């Protein structure tokens, strides 16, 4: 569907004699439609369309290019710019420093699965990786991460009777244990929460202030809609978000919510989840994300 939207834009542009105001308006409307269908935040879409409109109206078509090339290029550039540029993120973590990554996110977004994927990813690159289950609420959370940890042969810390313990204590114990044992990367899985669960948001702030993670990574479901912006903003106000993991991009959802989350927080998208298995993780590639967004 998005591919058709862009094809229509291209057709309109090639029929017009110049990039006049009316043609630009039609192009902007088509792009708005594509981005809204991709779940990008409405306000963000309006801001983007203003910038695209401004640039498209005053741009000159260089020799050898068509006006359609120029406008498509503008759209692509504005989106990539929002993501912080075309280059894929750098994932070089210093070794032997017990680099801690704390995963946070809304219920069911994919944190536990993504924690195991990250562990697999870093193990594959020769790092010594350990996992911590700091989710004391969800029934079976301990078993879920334990089974995944066993699958990838990484140790997991998380007392079996965790429902009577505080996540802050568990995280603290786990981090000091694994740092002492010389692990390179320590990944902490936390319970799902959303911005209106105030005591859970406070708990997340407490965990972060106690263990001082090197990185707090927001796991966001690719299917999330217009709430992505305000949820990410609230998470960022509770703990400074360093990075984003977009899960479930193997479905039909375009992941526009992640774009909104970046705009709301300045966090960098580093990884994407492309399936339920522990090796279905990829490094984020801004340009292929944008082309998929636009179809």
């Amino acid at each position, binding site marked *: 569907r998005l591919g058709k939207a862009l094809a229509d834009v291209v057709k309109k542009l090639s029929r017009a004699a110049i990039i006049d105001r009316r043609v630009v308006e039609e192009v902007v409307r088509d792009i708005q*439609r594509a981005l*809204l*269908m*991709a*779940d990008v935040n*409405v306000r963000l879409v*309006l801001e983007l369309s203003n910038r695209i409109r401004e640039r498209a109206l005053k741009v000159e078509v260089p020799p050898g290019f068509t006006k359609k090339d120029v406008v498509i290029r503008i759209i692509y550039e504005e989106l990539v710019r929002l993501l912080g540029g075309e280059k894929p993120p750098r994932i070089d973590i210093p070794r032997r420093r017990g680099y801690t990554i704390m995963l946070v996110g*809304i*219920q*069911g*977004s*994919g944190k*536990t699965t993504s924690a*195991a994927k990250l562990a697999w990813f870093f193990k594959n690159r020769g790092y010594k990786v350990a996992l911590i289950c700091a989710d004391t*609420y*969800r*029934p*079976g*959370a*301990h*078993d*879920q*991460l*334990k*089974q*995944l940890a066993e*699958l990838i042969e990484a140790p997991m810390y998380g007392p079996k009777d965790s429902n009577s313990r505080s996540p802050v204590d568990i995280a603290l114990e786990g981090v000091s244990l694994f740092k002492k044992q010389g692990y390179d990367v320590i990944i902490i899985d936390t319970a799902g929460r*959303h*911005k*209106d669960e105030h005591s859970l948001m406070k708990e997340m702030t407490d965990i972060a202030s106690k263990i001082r993670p090197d990185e707090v990574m927001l796991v966001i*479901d*690719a*299917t*999330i*809609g*217009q*709430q992505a912006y*305000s*949820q990410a903003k609230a998470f960022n106000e509770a703990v400074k978000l360093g990075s984003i993991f977009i899960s*479930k991009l*193997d*479905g*039909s*959802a*375009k992941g*526009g*919510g992640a774009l909104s989350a970046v705009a709301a927080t300045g966090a960098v998208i580093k990884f994407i989840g492309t399936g*339920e298995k522990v090796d279905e993780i990829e490094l984020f590639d801004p340009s292929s994300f944008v082309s998929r967004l636009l179809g």
Partner: protein
Amino acid sequence: SELTEKKLEPIMNELLLELVACDIAFPIAEEIVDHLKKELIGAKVERSKAAIRKFVKEKLREVLLSLLESGGEIDLIKMIEEKRRRREPFVILFLGPNGHGKTTTIAKIAYLLLKKGYSVVLACSDTFRAGAREQLEEHAKRLGVKMIRHEYGADPAAVAYDAVMYARARGIDVVLIDTAGRMQTNVNLMEELNKIARVVEPDLKVFVGDALTGNDALEQAMKFNEYVGIDAIVLTKVDADAKGGAAITIVKSIRKPILFLGTGQRYEDLVPFNPRWIIDRLLE
């Protein structure tokens, strides 16, 4: 004065964005706005912007209400009673995308039915995901109900079948079958779900969707309905400040009723669906 098409154009454009901002899928929002425009053209309203705005809002409320009511209604207790009279278990199959609340919703519905005096057995037909059995087992323990399970990797249809046989043999009123989350784009998993439904012939196939879902809710509802068939819907995480547009998207696209809304993580956090409640949220 009369509302003309020209006068309505900017109002309808603005309204489209407002509906999308409430998580109504874009194509559905377009249909609603087109329908509303037809209803409004030629209407006599006093000239002020405020009066027009108020009039449009009232009309929108009517359109949304009839849309949500077009899904019909299901009296779950009545259906359970009918099977009970025939000494047969009432079988509910739960399905839907990954992480959207199936297992938790099953626990909530079991809790509700137990409070009403019905006996319940759970079937763990999620034989794939790490910790799936332990998660449902913990709920079964807390609720004091039996859970039927096989080993990880077993045939989900076989687990479901065993649970129904168990219920028949013991005279248990309701069987709740939990399945693994899946993407509607995964043809193999949709076929697996189909097989469970064919083998067990559930009385009700319930789609569990997440209220935070955006445009994909349209694809999810249509494809799950196309492949397996959806009889009813539960929309979860409404407490996560979700405006509730997903309810509109799903009911408009597959015309099935929403049974419950999930409003939190505890067993009590399940409310019977009330269309006016969703519409009030959408229009505030």
